[in-house]
């Protein structure tokens, strides 16, 4: 069979999209757009990597920082949010054994987020709007540096993403709580207690006091608890970002209408606290919780066994809820106006608990896998182990920088960008998502055969080595004083940057190979067919066989 034929029709006939349910299609749409946005983000990353080696003539300062501004927006919202939301849109009803609350809303969600990410990207690409994702007040409304129209486009994009996010949240909560047609009424209280993980705490308490368990069979499975818990942070985060977005939009509209407003009316430090409280609910809230939930689910699916220490895992998810609300001050350890006590309690001590909560998730997942050996080294297992490794590296790196002594010399250096959040996102988070994609692949595609296992293996190793390597060389540059968000024009850190660039190329090549493998498996026809209306008028998640 020719390569061209396989490319168009897929491997062994490819994806038969006529047989896909609406839920399968909406999930695949979100995931595919998310994977494409990942590629765009990786390309932007490589542009910046190349510029760090030697300044590129095509990138002036304004252009460079606009790329830096849209890079995380595309990567986090355009890619990660879409892949995660897509997967959970399928998994929550799948695990709850009932249909998704609304397929229409799920379609609106991915479209709003995809459109929002595109608009935000255009704000950077066309107008070079570049306040970075941190949006430190009053930089987003500094119209001496930025075009207000660019700001309007960018912030409108972010607002659309947040509205789409609220749609996802509503759909997930509604799916957990609603009673489907023909089913006896599902009581609200046990569902809520279980979804919050409170039944796990009660079970531990009842056991300690010598009583029968509060709930022998929890109303909500553990991965759904994690998704529910993480979604609470997603909601709060969306509210904060929307509020800041509206504030910025008010100033933008004022400027565009010829009535500029006084930016000193907003206290920059107070705003920074508020914004970081919300933004940190992504990094230290929903990501960690969603990841823990995904690991638990993957471990159970890979082993076919129950999770080790279920009640502890449920309780730990509740603990993470409280921890994630109280850690934002670690982003303000270098702010001398921030109270020392807030730095100490929120910035250092409560943040250190993330080592505990994430450590518990790692332990429980590994022990569950261990309890079922010998296992087969499948793609999902190897990517899961890669994801766990990523967080084993990145979380301690974060705890280290969340120390008042070390933060003084690590804040805003490449340490934050490299060993901490790029390793967390690229190795920890993304490899976990790839594991989920590989394990859901047969269910979502009705058993399309993967085109090439060799390509999947290359994808794994190139991504793992590239991700860890890039983080390591950025970290080494940080030790020698290299800041993030700063241009070095005299080749100060060139050796590290060349090595980090090579690792970045590995990462990019991993994505190209993965995408090619997917397209060759399902075929271009199958790929297009995913975006057409489903011919199956059913609320079932997968076709009835």
């Amino acid at each position, binding site marked *: 069979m020719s390569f061209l034929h396989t490319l168009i029709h897929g491997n062994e006939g490819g994806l038969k999209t006529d047989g896909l349910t609406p839920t399968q299609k909406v999930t695949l749409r979100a995931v595919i757009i998310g994977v494409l946005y990942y590629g765009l983000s990786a390309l932007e990353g490589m542009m910046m990597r190349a510029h760090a080696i030697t300044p590129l003539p095509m990138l002036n300062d304004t252009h460079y920082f606009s790329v830096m501004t849209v890079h995380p927006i595309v990567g986090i919202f355009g890619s990660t949010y879409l892949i995660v939301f897509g997967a959970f849109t399928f998994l929550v009803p799948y695990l709850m054994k009932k249909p998704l609350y609304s397929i229409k809303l799920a379609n609106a969600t991915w479209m709003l987020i995809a459109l929002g990410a595109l608009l935000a990207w255009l704000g950077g690409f066309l107008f070079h709007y570049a306040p970075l994702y941190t949006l430190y007040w*009053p930089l987003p409304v500094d119209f001496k540096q930025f075009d207000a129209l660019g700001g309007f486009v960018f912030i409108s994009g972010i607002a659309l993403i947040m509205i789409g996010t609220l749609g996802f949240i509503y759909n997930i909560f509604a799916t957990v709580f609603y009673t489907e047609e023909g089913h006896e009424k599902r009581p609200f209280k046990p569902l809520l207690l279980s979804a919050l993980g409170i039944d796990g705490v009660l079970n531990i308490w009842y056991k300690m006091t010598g009583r029968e368990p509060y709930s022998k069979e929890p109303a909500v499975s553990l991965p759904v608890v994690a998704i529910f818990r993480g979604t609470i942070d997603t909601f709060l985060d969306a509210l904060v970002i929307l509020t800041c977005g509206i504030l910025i939009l008010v100033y933008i509209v004022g400027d565009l209408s010829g009535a500029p407003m006084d930016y000193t009316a907003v206290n920059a430090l107070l705003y920074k606290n508020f914004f970081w409280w919300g933004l940190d609910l992504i990094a230290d809230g929903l990501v960690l919780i969603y990841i823990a939930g995904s690991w638990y689910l993957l471990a159970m699916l890979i082993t076919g066994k129950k999770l080790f220490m279920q009640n502890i895992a449920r309780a730990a998810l509740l603990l993470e809820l409280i921890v994630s609300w109280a850690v934002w001050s670690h982003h303000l350890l270098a702010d001398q106006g921030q109270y020392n006590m807030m730095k100490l309690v929120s910035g250092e001590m409560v943040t*250190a608990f993330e080592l*505990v909560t994430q450590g518990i998730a790692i332990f429980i997942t590994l022990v569950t896998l261990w309890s079922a050996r010998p296992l087969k080294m499948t793609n999902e297992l190897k990517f899961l182990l890669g994801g766990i490794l990523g967080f084993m590296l990145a979380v301690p790196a974060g705890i280290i920088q969340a120390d008042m002594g070390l933060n003084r010399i690590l804040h805003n250096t490449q340490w934050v960008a490299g060993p901490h959040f790029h390793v967390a996102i690229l190795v920890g988070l993304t490899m976990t998502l790839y594991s989920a994609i590989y394990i859901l692949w047969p269910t979502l595609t009705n058993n399309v055969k993967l085109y090439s296992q060799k390509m999947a293996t290359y994808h794994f190793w190139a991504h793992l080595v590239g991700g860890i390597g890039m983080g390591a060389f950025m970290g080494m540059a940080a030790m020698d004083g290299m800041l993030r968000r700063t241009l070095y024009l005299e080749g100060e850190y060139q050796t590290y940057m060349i090595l980090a660039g090579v690792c970045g190329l590995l990462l990019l090549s991993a994505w190209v190979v993965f995408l090619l493998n997917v397209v060759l498996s399902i075929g271009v026809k199958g790929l297009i067919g995913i975006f057409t209306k489903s011919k199956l008028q059913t609320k079932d998640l997968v076709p009835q066989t």
Partner: protein
Amino acid sequence: MTDSVDVLNMLKIVYTLYTLAVISLICWFGLEVVNPKGKPRIVKASTFYVYVGALITVGVAIHIVTFNKIPWVEIDFKRDSLKAAQVVNITIEDHKFMLPSPKIELKCNEYVMFDVASKDLTYGFGIFRQNNSMVTQMQVVPGSKNDLMWKFGKNGVYHLRSTEYSGPKGAHMYIKDVFEVTGCTEDDKYSQKRGSL
């Protein structure tokens, strides 16, 4: 006196060893979990609790150790009650540092208070050695008190750089050889400059 070079060197060693240990652990786990001769094993609950105890200990110990070993932490905590021998007032506006003088001389082993104000955006204030490694830094937030107390223990000549992004116009907020520390018995070998200021 311990300086940032010492701390970062120690961090390099500790984190590199940790990284190698963790990678080795996952490699070993990956090999063993698929070992055809491997038997399923149930881990005791007590092992889990010991592990959680170890995590809590490590999480807290990091901060206790750094508080006791890194001198600037205590200075930072007590800066309101410590008397500065020298106060350096700096203002930043329109992406420009306005210094009290082009070259600022600092005395060894005396408390210096850097009091930096921003008239518009959020900036950073960072002191760097001749080899570009960082001595110290803080954020400079408009409308807030931005005071950093420091004690230099080695002779050297240091650069000033904004450590926070303030828009593309702030990309080159960098002034070489602003601070000179004298009077110490030891030289900062990474901050020596030929000739005088």
